[in-house]
């Protein structure tokens, strides 16, 4: 990542609108399992946080749905208070450092504390004890989950991810970007996780300077979304369509339709996996928006 020299004279990007939807996968329905994904957003006058998480399905992670829920809760709790500092920051390396050395450690600490509290308030039953014993796992392993977080404040989008899933930006021309570095460890079978001992090192981080690289749409998706797409390289078509739909119909229309899109991806038509998508949408995407909606300022 390179430092941006864009000056602070431009107005901060935004305001933004948010759409979030999650659906239980058909495979989970067949197995009578809950949706083990989670999604949440929060905002204040200076910042917006989007977070999604995908609990691992393996039996050793028998509380992963809870782990995912705790993860998105931790993301909002930890990231939002950093928003004002990031919004006021003019230096990209400083934002990166804040993400790497403050946000990620705090996320992990908050999640670990929440897991510990959950284990204390809801002790493992005999079957859960048996599974943990079978694998020789500490309690935290039961809560294994991915986590994708976007903290958007002022001119910056700070993106952090552990595990599989996708974070994508779309600029006003419809060009899509995946700002986070590829993790070669993710092979579709195994994933990095909040519950692994070296989770801090496994986090990927990116900072987008929204003045240098304008962003009209930000998408966070669990792997159920990408795995449902026919195209191997699905991002360009999805990004272009999202931008066109945003301009034609507005954010409210996308918000109302997103649950149906997500449900189709989670169905037997698609990947059959739990699917969660969070979208940050420019409220004025360089074109008419057909409907007025709740607007979240983050500048």
């Amino acid at each position, binding site marked *: 990542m390179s430092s941006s020299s864009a000056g602070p004279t431009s107005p901060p990007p935004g305001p933004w609108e948010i759409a979030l939807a999650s659906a239980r*996968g*058909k*495979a*989970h329905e*067949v*197995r009578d399992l809950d949706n*083990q994904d989670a999604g949440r957003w929060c905002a204040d006058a200076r910042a917006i946080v989007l977070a999604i998480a*995908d609990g*691992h*399905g*393996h*039996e*050793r*992670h028998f509380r992963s749905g809870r782990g995912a829920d705790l993860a998105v809760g931790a993301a909002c709790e930890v990231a939002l208070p950093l928003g004002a500092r990031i919004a006021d920051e003019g230096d990209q390396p400083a934002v990166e450092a804040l993400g790497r050395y403050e946000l990620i450690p705090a996320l992990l600490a908050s999640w670990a504390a929440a897991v510990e509290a959950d284990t204390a308030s809801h002790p493992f039953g005999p079957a859960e004890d048996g599974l943990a014993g079978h694998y020789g796992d500490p309690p935290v*392993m039961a809560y*294994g989950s991915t986590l994708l977080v976007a903290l958007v404040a002022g001119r910056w989008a700070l993106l952090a991810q552990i595990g*599989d899933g996708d974070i994508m930006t779309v600029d006003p021309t419809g060009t899509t970007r995946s700002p986070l570095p590829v993790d070669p*460890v993710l*092979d*579709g*079978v*195994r*994933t*990095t*996780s909040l*519950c*692994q001992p070296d989770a801090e090192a*496994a986090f990927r981080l990116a900072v987008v300077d929204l003045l240098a690289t304008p962003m009209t749409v930000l998408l966070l998706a669990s792997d159920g979304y*990408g*795995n*449902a*797409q*026919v*195209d*191997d390289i*699905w991002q360009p*078509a*999805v*990004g272009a*369509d*999202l931008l066109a*739909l945003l301009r034609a119909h507005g954010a409210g229309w996308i918000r109302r*339709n997103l649950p*149906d*899109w997500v449900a*189709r*991806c989670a169905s*037997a*038509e*698609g*990947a*059959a*996996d*739990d699917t969660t998508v969070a979208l940050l949408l420019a409220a004025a995407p360089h074109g008419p928006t057909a409907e007025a909606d709740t607007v979240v300022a983050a500048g």
Partner: protein
Amino acid sequence: MPGGGISRRPLHFIILADCSGSMRGDKIQALNFAIADMLPHLANWERDQELAQVMIRAIAFADAPQWHIEVPTPVSSLRWTPLRHVDRGRTNMGSAFELAATALAPGQLERRALRPALLLITDGLPTDPPGRFDAGLEALLALPAGGRALRLAVAIGRDAQSDALTRFIADVTVPVLVADNTEEIADRLVAASIAASRMSEVGVDRAALAQQLLQPAVGEGPELFDRDTIV
């Protein structure tokens, strides 16, 4: 809906069938019958589970391997063309593994494809030139998709239950399936196909798979999707 559309995730199922000279007569007939019998089971599973699209390919091998079905073909639309044995053909497995590896090389499978399945069926020991079995197996297992593939083997006759098949499977918890006679080939292939279809994706519990293979009536629960575990 944004994008180019959605579809089920593909499950690539590659059959490696021994067509050496020793397969002539009843064995090759039984094998053809067995594969033709197995395919509807896979198609039924695909229809009932509604979770994946099974794509079939097949390699016939003897002195040299060749694609019997080269283009991944949806199991629901596949009509099996009988294999033929090769007169005095040898059982060269290494080159068959190499050919399978070309289909699993990086970029050959969809990114979203489920864990592929390979089913090796043979009635004999490998007769590869020195070093070729090992080289072929290494070429296959060195690939990310080859290494993580669910690899099953059916031995036609006890004599075919060799160390070579165990090395192909490369998992001590997964047994070689033995068909003691031609009548049992179909049963073994059905068992293998059911196991492969149910267990091909993520977080495969090999011990449970072995149990399922040894006791086909056990383990009815579908265990195909969303069984990620950590690195």
